[in-house]
């Protein structure tokens, strides 16, 4: 960081002030701050400080400001001394020599308060250099914390920062109620929706999009429960946030009734567009896809699903299909290209098991193979199918405490090449009509495709 300090004993004020001066200064450097005691500070970071100072002096003089001086340095105190206390019009403090530069000046350039100034005078410290030469412990002991701060500045360790951008409060909204307590998610959603409306309106007004929003539930037991929502894409769209809230409330179990809700934006991004992924060829269409999936969800319910497998022995009970939110799909759906090769799903085609929604009753002709019967052909709605290869049986049984099952599975290749999976139920408790007087019931469970 380097600073340029402009100083004049008498800046024009009131009617004498040239209104064009400020735009002219801002044309030279983007960040200009008016400081105390007739000083103007210019942020020279990334610029040639000496050339900038000369340019500023020219501009200021052209606008009729007399006796203006400029100083440039890496620290504010050195730039200040160079501008206000050096005799030359432009003083450039060589980088790394700030402390040496300010050492000869009187301690009054540090602008100590009256109490400190008296103490320093009492101690016989007259120059900045002599003050800086003391050790921190003795300064702290004699002059206290303010003295240490002044001592740091005397050592050209000046941490003043003139170009701070004020932090803008992130949008938030809250509502509390006393007479009743809410438990059901629909009413909570109603309240949150109204809070979201004001938060999203504020975001749109500021030209920002939220990445994270926290919901703080004030509970009846005088405790709070905080849940943070995160959108895959920063957005100020109320509908999209409401959908995330609805998903969260479906899964959330609050420990007590709710007597107040506060909604606050935790993280935002500007409207300048999200950072794209070089390998994400679908990045540009992500918003459109998310909106489409959300519409699909609104229209058809849980249409987009992902498998959740259990260890149940029966194939038809092993998989549960759970809804997948659009945000979740987008967050995982496009990462294929960025995954390491070993972690990517195989792109080699593989015949996998396809299941009928319910096992379909079939008629089977069997033949004896060693000590067991194997199917040789079967009949379904399409007629008879001869089998050219049969593997099995694989026996599975269990469920004695709920609904007992005992099955023998066969993998069979039909004459048309289709690999089908059938079983014979051995428990005698399957409520499926039988074909004739067969004591075993055969079912088609699925096929490989």
């Amino acid at each position: 960081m380097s600073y340029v300090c402009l100083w004049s004993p008498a800046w024009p004020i009131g009617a004498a002030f040239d209104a064009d001066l400020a735009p002219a200064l801002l044309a030279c450097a983007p960040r200009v701050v008016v400081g105390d005691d007739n000083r103007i500070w210019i942020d020279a970071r990334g610029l040639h400080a000496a050339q900038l100072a000369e340019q500023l002096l020219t501009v200021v003089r052209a606008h009729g400001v007399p006796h203006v001086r400029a100083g440039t340095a890496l620290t504010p105190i050195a730039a200040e001394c160079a501008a206000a206390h050096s005799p030359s019009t432009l003083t450039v403090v060589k980088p790394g020599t700030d402390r040496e530069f300010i050492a000869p000046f009187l301690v009054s350039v540090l602008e100590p308060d009256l109490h400190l100034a008296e103490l320093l005078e009492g101690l016989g410290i007259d120059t900045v250099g002599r003050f800086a030469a003391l050790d921190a412990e003795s300064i702290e002991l004699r002059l206290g914390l303010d003295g240490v701060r002044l001592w740091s500045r005397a050592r050209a360790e000046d941490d003043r920062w003139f170009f701070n951008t004020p932090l803008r409060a992130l949008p938030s909204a809250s509502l509390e109620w006393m007479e009743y307590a809410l438990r059901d998610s629909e009413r909570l959603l109603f309240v949150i929706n109204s809070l979201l409306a004001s938060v999203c309106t504020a975001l749109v007004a500021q030209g920002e999009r939220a990445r994270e929003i926290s919901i703080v539930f004030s509970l009846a037991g005088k405790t709070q429960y905080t849940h943070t929502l995160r959108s895959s894409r920063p957005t100020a769209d109320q509908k999209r946030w409401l959908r995330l809230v609805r998903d969260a409330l479906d899964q959330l179990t609050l420990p007590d009734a709710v007597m107040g809700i506060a909604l606050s934006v935790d993280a935002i991004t500007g409207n300048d567009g999200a950072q794209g992924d070089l390998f994400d060829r679908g990045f540009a269409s992500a918003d459109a896809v998310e909106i489409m999936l959300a519409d699909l969800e609104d229209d058809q319910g849980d249409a987009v699903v992902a498998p959740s497998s259990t260890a149940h022995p029966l194939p038809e009970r092993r998989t549960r299909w759970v809804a997948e939110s659009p945000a979740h799909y987008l967050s995982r759906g496009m990462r294929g290209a960025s995954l390491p090769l070993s972690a990517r799903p195989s792109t080699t085609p593989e015949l996998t098991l396809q299941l009928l929604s319910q096992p379909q009753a079939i008629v089977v002709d069997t033949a004896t193979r060693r000590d067991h019967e194997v199917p040789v052909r079967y009949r379904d709605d399409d007629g008879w199918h001869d089998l050219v290869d049969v593997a099995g049986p694989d026996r599975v049984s269990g469920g004695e405490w709920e609904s007992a099952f005992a099955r023998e599975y066969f993998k069979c290749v039909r004459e048309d090449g289709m690999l089908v999976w059938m079983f014979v139920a051995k428990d005698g408790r399957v409520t499926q009509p039988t074909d004739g007087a067969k004591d075993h019931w055969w079912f088609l469970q699925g096929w490989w495709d």
Partner: protein
Amino acid sequence: MPATAADLSSLRSILEQRFPDATPVTHRTTDQVASGISQLDRALPSGGFPRGRLSVWAPLGGATAILRAACYAITAAGERAAWIDGEHTLTSHSWIDGPALIKPTTRRNALRAAEEILRSGGFALVVMSGTEPVGSEAVRLTRAAREGGAALVSLTSASAMSSLRVSSQLDPRGYTWHRTPFGEPAVAHDVLVRVRARAMGWNAHTQFLVPVLHHELRLSLEPGLADRRGVRR
């Protein structure tokens, strides 16, 4: 007066401009979505499934395996793929994270989902299985595919409105088996798949081996008990 070659050429270009959907895929006027299976891509007229067009693939015969692999290849390449499972036949055994899986509750919902997905413009490949669009439904989906630029593949035998027709068959004698000590088949290892691709002015065949993913039966007596087969005691 007989038409000259130049006249025919200009007529063809006018027709292609006015009726782009009628242009055979062999003219390569559309982009394509490569399936990621080199043997198959070589057999397809434009090196993949044509974007913005309807392709049909006759069900069974390894169609699900091949199209699922194409979905994964597309996802791995950074694009999106969707699978509409109209008959709810897919199992967790046959599905891994990647493509969007839609399990609509009714046939109508399947068609509506397909149309919305196609129109969104965010998908490279959309596969419809278990729901066969007929008549005006096929027209509507073809239009949606053209608008969104996705390659639509329908697992159906009805080929109306399709630019590309593919069928595949598993060779019943092409299975490789791990056999039991008695010489009987135990576990199928792989199978030979024969694929035929047809379009206007195109008829190509290919064949390749496809592994068979073994479905492990869980032989534990109760669902709640851990399956300890193979665990050292």
